């Protein structure tokens, strides 16, 4: 009986939005083969668990980033950014910095995402999705490609004397942040305060402006 209730509550395919359905199927089709490949490689013992997770996260990050800079719909773009940020949080976990991972989720997943959404809504950016990309897009692609190649080459050409990563303890992090970086920490808090006040001051609706606008219209 219980199972029937749950089934009844699931939306029927006909009720699903066509776009969502298509997009979901497409995403699944793209994502599934690499996932299967990774799992197979893990089972065969060619890669470690950590490496498998790394590849998954890297896929999420790169896909999110690509979506953020290429999607035409600005809301989708913002959501892609959040996906990339969440992938990055996972990366931080992998790098043994739990605190940073938590901060990343809180700040990006919470604050920045909401802010961006509000910005999009307030500026009606969704209304003219066609002209989102500028005329210099080809040049930008060229420059970005060259920069990516250059950076990759630079990263790979250097001989890093890297040791194993260690877990960053919460207690040590706090001690280091408040003892050795006390002054920058305070300055950063001041910067936040100034930014807050500045944002309010800049975006505040001036009564005079409103009157003028009404008088003009």
């Amino acid at each position, binding site marked *: 009986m219980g199972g029937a209730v749950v089934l009844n509550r699931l939306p029927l395919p006909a009720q699903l939005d066509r776009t969502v359905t298509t997009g979901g199927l497409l995403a699944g089709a793209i994502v599934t083969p690499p996932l299967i490949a990774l799992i197979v490689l893990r089972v065969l013992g060619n890669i470690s668990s*950590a490496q498998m997770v*790394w590849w998954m996260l*890297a896929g999420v*990050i*790169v896909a999110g*980033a690509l979506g*953020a*800079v290429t999607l035409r719909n*600005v809301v989708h*773009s913002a959501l892609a*950014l959040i996906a*990339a*940020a969440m992938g*990055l949080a996972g*990366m*931080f976990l992998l*790098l043994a*910095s739990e*605190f*940073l991972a938590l*901060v990343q989720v809180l700040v*990006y997943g919470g*604050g*920045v995402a909401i*802010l*961006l959404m509000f*910005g999009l809504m*307030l*500026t009606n*950016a969704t209304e003219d999705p066609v*002209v*989102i*990309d*500028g005329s210099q897009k080809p040049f*930008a692609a060229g420059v*970005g*490609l060259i*920069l*990516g190649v250059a*950076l*990759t080459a630079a*990263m*790979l050409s250097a001989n*890093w004397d*890297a*040791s*194993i990563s*260690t877990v960053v303890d919460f207690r040590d*992090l706090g001690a*280091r*942040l408040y003892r050795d970086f006390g002054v920058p920490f305070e300055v*950063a808090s001041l*910067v936040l305060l100034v*930014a*807050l006040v*500045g*944002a309010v*001051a800049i975006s505040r*609706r001036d009564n005079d*402006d409103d009157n003028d606008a009404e008088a003009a219209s």
Partner: protein
Amino acid sequence: MIPLEYYLVLSGILFALGFYGVLARRSAILILIAVELMLAAVSLNFVAFASYMDAELFTGVIFAIFVITIAAAEVGLALGIVLRIFRERRSANVDEASSLKW
């Protein structure tokens, strides 16, 4: 064991993508999103180096915290400016903010 170069190359690709976004996009908010990507790439780089090469002091992690802080402040402020421009010009299109010329 994941080599350091994995993270570095990933951050490089992420940075280049953000770079492309900044140059290619026309809407101010999308440019902002691309900038966030670049900042994320930088903090990934910092944290990777901190974990692999600076295990005792992990200064890079501290820097990543500051980067996130500044990024949050920047988003707030920049959105304020975008709102203001939008209210003045009825558009968040940076191509139309072209009064900086002869």
